[in-house]
């Protein structure tokens, strides 16, 4: 499976994703430069963490204007797999590819720490290797991660089973003090209606080796590989 990792000016997690895909998963990865609208035939696009364009104005606001985002939108529109983590999630919401928005953390400062996440749905190509209710550990590292959506939008998310991860404690409980940024309804990750775009604030790539404290991030990659092997044509439309 070939992953394309988008590099915006100010991205910084792209090398980490590259490392995990190539060194840990032994799959193929290439970088996609933001100024090019060409996805080089990849099977899955990753929007990594960082501060694209400095996150000046609003996190992700300027990045979504890059030529590569037109290609990503078209790719997603054709059913292609798109994963956005951290800044990638912010960019996807700014681009309107995912619902909602990410506001400054309610504590108003940056937080880098381990979090527990409850898997809410395995009905996405990103979570087939996980169980609903399963608790996974991944770090967060962001200043603007407070997920917000209006009431109507939230209802749609719930009804559409589009909330994929929620912040919880080690047992899976949604206690107030385990919501690290004040996200609405503890939301850590959502998918689009079509379920081929996933955005989450935590960093799966930082949880892909035991020496770093968790391998749970690999479950997400395993899901992607699995979905791809099972139905490569439906998961990446424009190659078919």
């Amino acid at each position: 499976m070939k992953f394309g990792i988008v590099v915006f000016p100010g991205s910084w997690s792209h090398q980490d994703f590259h490392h995990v895909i190539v060194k840990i998963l032994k799959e193929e990865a290439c970088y996609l430069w933001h100024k090019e609208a060409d996805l080089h035939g990849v099977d899955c696009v990753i929007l990594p963490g960082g501060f694209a364009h400095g996150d000046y104005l609003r996190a992700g606001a300027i990045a979504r204007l890059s030529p590569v985002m037109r290609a990503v939108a078209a790719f997603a529109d054709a059913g292609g797999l798109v994963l956005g983590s951290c800044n990638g999630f912010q960019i996807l919401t700014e681009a309107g590819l995912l619902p909602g928005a990410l506001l400054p953390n309610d504590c108003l400062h940056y937080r880098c720490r381990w979090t527990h996440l409850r898997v809410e749905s395995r009905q996405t190509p990103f979570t087939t290797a996980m169980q609903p209710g399963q608790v996974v550990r991944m770090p967060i590292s962001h200043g603007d991660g407070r997920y917000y959506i209006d009431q109507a939008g939230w209802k749609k998310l719930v009804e559409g089973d589009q909330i994929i991860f929620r912040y919880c404690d080690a047992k899976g409980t949604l206690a107030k003090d385990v919501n690290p940024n004040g996200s609405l309804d503890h939301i850590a990750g959502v998918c689009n209606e079509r379920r081929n775009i996933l955005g989450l604030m935590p960093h799966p790539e930082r949880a892909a080796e035991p020496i770093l404290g968790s391998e749970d991030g690999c479950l997400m990659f395993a899901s992607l590989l699995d979905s791809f092997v099972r139905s490569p044509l439906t998961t990446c439309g424009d190659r078919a």
Partner: protein
Amino acid sequence: MTVSVVAPDLIASHGLTADEYDRIVAIIGREPNLVELGMFGAMWSEHCSYKSSRVHLATLPTEGPRILQGPGENAGVLDIGDGLALVFKMESHNHPSFIEPYQGAATGVGGIIRDIFTMGARPFALCDSLRFGPLTDPKNRYLFSRVVAGIAGYGNAVGVPTVGGEAYFAEPYSGNPLVNVLCVGVARKDRLFFAKAGGIDNPVIYVGARTGRDGIHGATMASGVFDEGAEARRPTVQVGDPFREKLLIEACLELMEGDDLVAVQDMGAAGLTCATAEMASRGGTGIEIDLARVPRREPGMTAYELMLSESQERMLVVAKAGSEARVRTVFEKWDLDAAVIGHVTEGGLLRVLDHGRPVAEIPADALASEAPAYHRPSSRPAEADARQRLDLDRLPLPDDYAAVLLELLRSPNLCCKEGIWERYDHMLFLGTIVGPGSDAVVLRLPGGTRAIALSIDGNSRYCTVDPYRGAMIAVAEAARNVVCGGGEPLAITNCLNFGNPERPEIMWQFVEAVTGIGEACRAFQTPVTGGNVSLYNETSGNAIFPTPMIGMVGLLDDVAYATGQWFQAEGDLVALFGDTREELGASEYLAIRFGLVQGEPPALDLTRERAVQRTCLEAIRAGIIRSAHDCSDGGLVVALAESCLGATPIGVDIQLKDTIRPDALLFGESQSRIVVSLKATDWLRLERIAAAHQVPVTRLGIVGGTRFRLHGPACGLDLPMTEVEAAWRSGLASSLGA
């Protein structure tokens, strides 16, 4: 050129003395014009020229088999094998951080990162060392929280993780907080870059942010004491743009892959003046630039302002003739301005033109290396003896040891610092094997099988009472921390923060500290690769504690040696390397309980220290050690408590047999001690290793349960771990406003 009749107050306002001015006139054979005077003022400032410290720094050991670059370049470089070089350096940004804490700290981070990537290395970790006045004062809380925010704001956005550091609070820092930042990077050994101009007619290219009026006189400001007028000097503060710096990192590293660059230097203190003068001086060439070609942010800037601006995120590169187009292509790719502003010339002259008209002509060496070097008078202050005296008999023993322990754990200097480091991304690059919170940070190197260990240390209390021994201990503690992480100490960088060197007692502190550092570095075979001296850290005559900070790097041949300070499993044995003596002098215990910074600091026997470190390292490499934690501030009991406070706290049951004064047994800070834990079945092997190095090793107790229990001959305590943890975690909570 016009020859000005320079008024004495103009000379003084450039931080130059009458003698220094005469020397300038003698060197250039005429009176300088205003632009030239400004250039001399900046380059001959204490900050840039090290005029008070140079003769003493020259005594430090700087050679060793691994040294690829010692002091004198933008950063030091070590050969760490596998074709890799480790580039590292520490810098202070004390004065700017006092004036505008957020931007001062942020631009400090930006500056030290530039020092690393100009050498061709990818910066991959930062550590910060902070000194503030007590957080009970709102002003100090404001400064502290804004400095932390500035480090976070810049470091996080630029994408270099801040993986560790330290923070210490005491009254003398109220008028003068310290912000020291260390950065490390890795480079390929065969692709190092230096800031040496070369190749006559090669283009000199300006890259990065445009020049504004920021920070004019920054170097001279950092070389003067603060007084009532300090607030008025505020407009000199520069503002950082981490996004542009990130672009600069990527663009420069991309260019360095090719064969187009001859030399690279960042524009930090003294801006364009320093970059041109130093590159030319190091390369034995001249440089000619025309200011008309310098990209600028504001209209109407004068030559004087352009030469002295300290606008951030700017670099100067010397490229090969003919490479201009390729250089420009790479910078354009990263949306950065690049402008050819001049070229390398024969002879040693720095020539500055403005639209073709000469505005300054000075031999580069005169600016960069001919500043005076002072042997400033130094004398041991009268009160030194009194400071060293301590009458223990007048200090009552505590009647509740548990309460004292909780008080210590809750105190700002010993409490959990997570409130600081959770604001810093400390995981980027997937290298943080042992993260912030442990003695040393352990970072996996590219390639994946090896790692480095990093520690920043400096004990202000010890240095106040005895700067010589305090500085030696700083080196010893840094090395010990690196060893606890599993690393073999390789070399140090440093920031030497002191008061006004024109006062003999301050100069004495400085000389003593440098002597101590040199001696310890020789003993540990950890040469000095560079560092930074920050003097004049005083406001209205009140100097800071003498604060030499040591940044130590070490190497782990195998990431499997990476060791944290936290107990791992129920039933493990707890053991102590080294001896506990009746040493309470200058301890944190005395400072907290009695408000005393007094009494001789603990003794340091360098031979013993080395033996303890060898023992610990050998045991780690033998795979016996499950956790290792050095005993420092707060003594043995605090070290034990900290060892219990990992991600999932675990209890311990300790039996102490020494019959010394119980508070010294628990809270004394005898050096050369390490608390380790190991499987019970490994005890005999551990004893054997320790015996081979003639290091005493004592069984202290057993890990497990949910209580912190300790029994000594004349003292004891028994606390639930929840209470220990709550005290330790609460310390900083209210101090870091949003």
